């Protein structure tokens, strides 16, 4: 087939699976205790220049504690994969201020917006300034790229993005199907250097359970060279072994396990607590003014030692109790936290 096209966007990560196989060969596969603080996990496993993956879905089951810590440790020049990245992108984009550059390159499908809540003024400033190298994708294209990497193959084909400018500004390539002669889009495998994923339960080795939708996290964990898990609760390995069908990420993939109760706050954690719409709205509002946003970040992130202190500043257990009532649709509490 002639006239097969290729996107002109930058390919930030090599889809060479042989290289990742070599890395995975050297990975520690023994069952070892990986429990540590978020601070230690980020110090050890997130390097300047790394390409970062973030689990969950923007404001749902996100690894807020790890994202804050990346900001607090002032990591630099990170790459990022943004499939419906909303509050997670908003946190990372806060590192691109006052001359600092936490993010330098982004594979994006959905950033800047917070869905029905509106656009993030600061994220817009960062992306519109041109200081980031960006490459366009779709949510499913990024999911396929992670799936290819998780499968250990260089690409997966799909019918997505054909005929669009999204394809033109991506780094995908059109290919011909060897069986049907149909045109397809080849989506290159994406192996992030490190990913941060928040789960409901994990044991000390990193065997993980997720309640509800998994989004793309099982593939993200398998695709990533290093994985930091934050978990609502630590459970025993006996508990994991009693229901192995519930394990969605095996310890083999995981490098660090951090117990962070309410760790998706201000995001939603299915079955545990709803998103704090008031806090998210405050964040969007304060971003309008750079000085006010700097002061906000200083108060809530840079001047606190850890996530627990942030949670205290946001109302602590009283706030969580309200969000839990909202999550569980306790009668009479429906109005709390509405937009």
């Amino acid at each position, binding site marked *: 087939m002639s006239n097969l096209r290729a996107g002109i966007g930058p390919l930030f990560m090599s889809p060479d699976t042989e290289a990742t196989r070599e890395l995975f060969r050297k990975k520690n596969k023994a069952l070892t205790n990986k429990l540590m603080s978020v601070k230690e996990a980020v110090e050890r496993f997130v390097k300047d220049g790394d390409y970062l993956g973030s689990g969950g879905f923007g404001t749902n089951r996100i690894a807020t504690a790890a994202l804050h810590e990346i900001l607090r440790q002032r990591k630099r020049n990170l790459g990022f994969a943004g499939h419906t990245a909303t509050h997670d992108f908003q946190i990372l984009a806060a590192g691109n201020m006052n001359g600092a550059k936490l993010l330098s390159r982004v594979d994006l499908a*959905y950033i800047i917006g917070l869905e029905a809540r509106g656009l993030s003024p600061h994220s817009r400033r960062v992306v519109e300034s041109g200081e980031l190298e960006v490459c366009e994708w779709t949510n499913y294209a990024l999911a396929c790229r992670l799936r290819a990497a998780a499968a250990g193959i260089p690409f997966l084909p799909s019918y997505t993005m054909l005929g669009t400018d999204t394809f033109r500004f991506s780094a995908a390539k059109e290919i011909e199907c060897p069986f049907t002669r149909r045109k397809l889009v080849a989506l290159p495998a994406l192996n992030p250097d490190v990913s941060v994923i928040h789960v409901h339960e994990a044991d000390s080795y990193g065997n993980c359970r997720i309640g*509800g939708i998994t989004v793309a996290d099982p593939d993200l964990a398998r695709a990533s060279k290093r994985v930091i898990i934050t978990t609502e609760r630590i459970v025993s390995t006996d508990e994991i072994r009693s229901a192995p069908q519930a394990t969605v990420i095996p310890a083999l993939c995981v490098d660090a396990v951090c117990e962070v109760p309410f760790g998706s706050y201000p995001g939603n954690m299915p079955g545990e607590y709803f998103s704090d719409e008031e806090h998210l709205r405050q964040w969007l509002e304060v971003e309008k003014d750079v000085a006010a946003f700097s002061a906000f970040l200083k108060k809530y992130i840079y001047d606190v030692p850890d996530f627990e202190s942030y949670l205290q500043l946001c109302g602590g257990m009283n706030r969580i109790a309200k969000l839990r009532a909202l999550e569980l649709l306790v009668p009479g509490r429906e109005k709390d936290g509405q937009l």
Partner: protein
Amino acid sequence: MVNYNAIELMIIAAARLLENGSTVAVGTGAPCAAAMLAQKTQAPDLIIAFESGGLAPLLPVMPISVGDSRSFHRALMAGSMSEIMEICQRGLMDYTFLGGAQIDPYGNLNSTLIGDYEKPKVRFPGSGGADDLASFCWRTLIIIPHSRKRFVNKLDFLTTPGYLNGPGAREAAGLPRGCGPYRVISDLGAMSFDQETKRMQVESLHPGVSYEQVQQSTAFEIPRARNMGETTPPDKTELRILREEIDPYRYVIGR
């Protein structure tokens, strides 16, 4: 005569398009409200899917995010993004419901940027799942307010495929056969696409709206469909369900 606002009318007109027993992949906001309304009126067995993984939820209230707990509340399955997108790619999804910043005569959508790619005037979130869903689902429904800034002759960026540049263009690009935009619901009317030219035409005018008003609010030529009619106004039951059960805090239908 019952009173209603433009967004209520758009949601109600859109909801009526979804038949019982069909499948629809929706985003949050107006599309989700329309699917919920359809489920509570003529389509109790409508299967709603969210791109983040929820399949066939019984929505207690409208989700704020397409991935929050509500999006798989009492669902038949809490899956993954690939699970839902591949249901669509396999040909099992009848409808998808999208919005956008700009639309052109062929129903192509822009949700990426205004201006030049290298130096955008305004950057929007990007495709998200829109390009995937419009590529895979049989019929694309679009909700977008009517203005010359939004109904443009040429998009600043083609994020999501409609009929691309005319008859046969989707198939030539490699997209699955037989799919494409089906209806565009604005605050002025409902638009369909001419079978021959694949260009947008006015299918029905909302109550009190003239054809000239639609043409004046559209930057390209928009002909009347052969049997152009008038949109049936919202009835009391539809408005009550929308206001009381679906969006009681009016965050989509307006405060």
